[in-house]
């Protein structure tokens, strides 16, 4: 189970690898098809699906200009601006592969979350070029699983562990995280040779902010009722961001926004007026683990919003660069990466409740599905508080626990169908 090239070339290992690749490609292709088959797909979504296909079906690397090194990241706490400024490109490696999960299951303890198991599976098999080509991996120490993952990856790859504060109100914690970013920046400079100057940082912030501008436009369009784009399509677009150079993604997103604007003008909506409007929050939904959004939309619900880190939250918060200097930008990045983050790994959870409340209002949500990946404790902890808060608002919520396999699909289907019916019935 190691990276040793001599052993990997051995026939059983190689066979296993080939089996792994063909199996995971097949699963990815199946889900990609299902996403494509959903009605009302905007034409401008095709490039995003191509990206996902390139990475997961054709087993290609990240979509980027040549000779730019990639830096693998986990969680939203790693500021992509820093990596772009150093002349590299970030790739979000949070895995959603069922095949890799099965392999990771042997490596990680039973109660570890499937996301980490999938990552460990990829690492063990040594497949998927997106993972292989990373020159460096940055792991923010958010939850226990990520902590151990950092250690596991550290033995095999050049890995940087970013220590994320567990509270966000104290200035000292914030300053420590700024120091972490400086240290991370120094590591990046070692990798690429490009110093983190103000010019480069400012340029990189401009790159990502342009993407966030398009995303903000997109969010404004999404808030329109009824829905302009299916939630699953949206999730695919957001997932594609993780494997694309940001300037390419911005271009695709702009085209998508333009098309959606045109559709609104023509009155072509992606769902009917009376579809139950559903918000998904909780553990990340990573391609190809798209069973939940697909089920919601196939069961007649309208997935209007999501509050997950591979979805809207992944790039939602823009850095507010107040001080136009190197230090000012790094402070802004540190602030942006931790303070507004609704990840339940932090001590307090009030702002997460407020965030959901705001989203319920913005998107006129009628029901919330709380997605919990088995073993994702921090999200599970927060369910109770969320249930109480939503109870006060009179918005129904269900907790959906799932794993990275297709065994629970039918069970999920029944629960989601019932939930959709519940909202429909409540409306009448």
């Amino acid at each position, binding site marked *: 189970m190691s990276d040793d090239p001599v052993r990997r070339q051995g026939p059983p290992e190689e066979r296993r690898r080939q089996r792994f690749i063909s199996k995971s490609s097949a699963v990815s292709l199946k889900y990609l098809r299902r996403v494509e088959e959903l009605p009302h797909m905007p034409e401008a979504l095709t490039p995003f699906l191509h990206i996902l296909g390139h990475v997961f079906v054709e087993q290609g690397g990240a979509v980027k200009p040549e000779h730019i090194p990639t830096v693998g990241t986990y969680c939203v706490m790693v500021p992509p601006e820093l990596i772009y400024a150093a002349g590299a490109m970030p790739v979000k490696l949070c895995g959603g592969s069922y095949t890799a999960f099965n392999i990771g299951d042997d490596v990680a303890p039973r109660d570890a979350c499937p996301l980490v198991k999938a990552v460990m599976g990829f690492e063990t098999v040594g497949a998927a070029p997106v993972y292989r080509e990373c020159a460096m991996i940055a792991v923010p120490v958010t939850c226990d699983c990520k902590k151990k993952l950092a250690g596991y990856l550290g033995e095999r790859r050049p890995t940087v562990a970013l220590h994320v504060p567990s509270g966000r109100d104290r200035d000292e914690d*914030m300053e420590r995280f700024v120091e972490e970013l*400086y240290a991370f920046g120094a590591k990046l400079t070692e990798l690429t040779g490009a110093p983190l100057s*103000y010019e480069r940082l400012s340029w990189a912030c401009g790159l990502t902010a342009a993407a966030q501008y398009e995303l903000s436009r997109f969010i404004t369009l999404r808030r329109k009722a009824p829905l302009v784009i299916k939630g699953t399509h949206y999730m695919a677009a957001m997932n594609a961001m993780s494997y694309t150079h940001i300037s390419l993604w911005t271009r695709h997103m702009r085209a998508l926004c333009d098309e959606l604007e045109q559709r609104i003008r023509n009155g072509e909506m992606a769902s009917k007026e009376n579809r139950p409007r559903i918000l998904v929050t909780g553990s990340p939904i990573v391609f190809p683990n798209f069973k939940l959004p697909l089920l919601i939309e196939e069961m007649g619900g309208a997935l209007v919003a999501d509050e997950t880190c591979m979805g809207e939250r992944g790039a939602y*918060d823009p850095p*507010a660069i107040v001080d136009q200097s190197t230090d000012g930008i790094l402070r802004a990045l540190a602030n942006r990466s931790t303070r507004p983050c609704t990840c339940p790994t932090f001590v307090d959870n009030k702002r997460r409740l*407020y965030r959901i409340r705001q989203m319920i209002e913005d998107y006129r949500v009628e029901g919330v599905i709380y997605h919990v990946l088995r073993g994702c404790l921090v999200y599970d902890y927060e369910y109770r508080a969320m249930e109480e808060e939503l109870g006060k608002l009179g918005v129904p919520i269900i907790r959906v626990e799932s794993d990275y396999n297709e065994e629970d699909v039918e069970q999920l289907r029944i629960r989601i169908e019932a939930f959709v019916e519940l909202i429909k019935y409540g409306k009448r």
Partner: protein
Amino acid sequence: MQKKTKRTVLFVLFTVVLFTVVLCAAAYFAADLPFFQYDDPLARASLTVAEDGEDLSFTYENDAITLHGASGAAVYALTTGGTAAIGEAYTASLPADFLGSFAAVSTATEDTDGDGTAERVTRVAKTDMEFTQGYTAAANAFLSGEIPFEVVYTDRKTFTLYLDAQPLAGADVTVTPADGTERTVITDENGSVEGIDLNDVRGGLRFTWRSGEGDVYTIHYQVEADTVFTVRWLSAMLPFGVIVLIAVICIAVDVWLRKRLYQKADMPAGKTGVTAKDLRKKRRYFGFETVRWVVMIVSFALLVFGSRLTGTVFANVQLPIFACPYNLDQLTGAGCYLLSHPDVLFASSWREILGFFGTFAVCAVLFGRVLCGFVCPMGLLQDVAHEARQALHIEGIALNERLYAVLRMVKWVMMILFLGIGFVGGSFCDFCPAMALSPAFGGFKLSLGLGGFVTVAVLVSGFFKRRCFCNICPMGFVLGLPHKLSLFKLKKDAVACTECGACYEACPMEIKSVFTVQEGKGDVRAIDVTTTDCILCGECVRRCPENNALAMTFCGKKIYTADRMKFMRDYAPPRPKKKKENDNE
């Protein structure tokens, strides 16, 4: 329990004694610490006596004073020893014991009104050099037998007339400004005349009074001529220039030292960048920020030069800001002077006391610390310094809670100095950084004491930390105290807020509660987050990326609201295509 009370009493006593000692020491030293001293105006000034047949009057040509129409006139100067007759002209400089006031008296018997009988005509000319040269609360007065008819410019609104050193009460006096228009005024029981425009005073005034016996008394009064935008104005700016120069040197040294320090400590990348060019194209939008800058610049110009437009109409208003009232050409007075000089405040008339407190109350309720953010000249100075740093991309000093606690201590010290030093015989003006700003721009030659050093500190600290002085400003703190009554408020929607801390980063006053507050009185969607420190500069709203999360309200109406698309518009893609389409249409 008793022991504890005893200890508390002792502690309070000790603190009070310590404060008193510190205050006395500060008052003693601050007055004697020179930063920039102008030489005595008398050493530069000269006096020429010209017998040129013009009306008896003084004129100024820079430092040279000329007495016109001096034939047969007796010339007097006010000296430390009283009124002294002077015979000759002083071509190089004036003796050191002179006080800067001159008078010339000539008497004649003429027929001035053309009725055939000749009256005794007494012509007097008087001048005060001090008016733009230094500051005295009231102008000099001779009040001696040699000058039979005299006017004294008591303050910026009142003239008092004296006949043979006695107030001339209830007399009809004709006032003729330089433009020749005549006006008749009646003096009150103190011999005072009010309502004469400051702008007329600058040009020179002639007062004429006919006594019941038919005697005619005229006096020509001239203050030192207007010096704004002349070479002399530039020389008045000299101390300010010196301050800026020292501040620039301090900043350069500081940047260099920090760079060395970071290199030595082997700090990670980034912290050494001194200056840099921003490659991204800057876009400028008209917004709240623009309004704030325009208001700041206009109010600065008005405060310094405003009286040239309106005279002394607004002189009774005592704006609670740091626009130094030592500059006599101000549009309004500054409340700081009376607040820090209780002796002067309680010695003045009840009308003035009422006016002072009235203005203060109105300002506090109507505007509150909006005055700090929009009007105060010290604020403008610091904002300019901050913008300079932004343009050079030099790293600033980000204050955290611990450093800010230190700054808060300094604020209390300033507070004690501000309110207390008047009681031990000192003057806060010796410390005040505002003394170097408005008077210099007004062309007012003011020697600086400790205040000059404080101004350098204000500039340097304001460069590295935005509006650093505002954090320790005692005047602003007093103004902010009644913020609960103020009509301007900062409201937060705690639900929309993602608590990203951008407002905290942007806030020049380091108000953390804006982003941490999650619940308040009443609606969580409109929590009042205004604090005593808040200067309502709108920076937090500008940097807020969430729709409606922060808003500035006036009388409960939103006047400036956070908006995500506005926040992001700096990064909007250029769209030349659309424009072309529009052109074709």
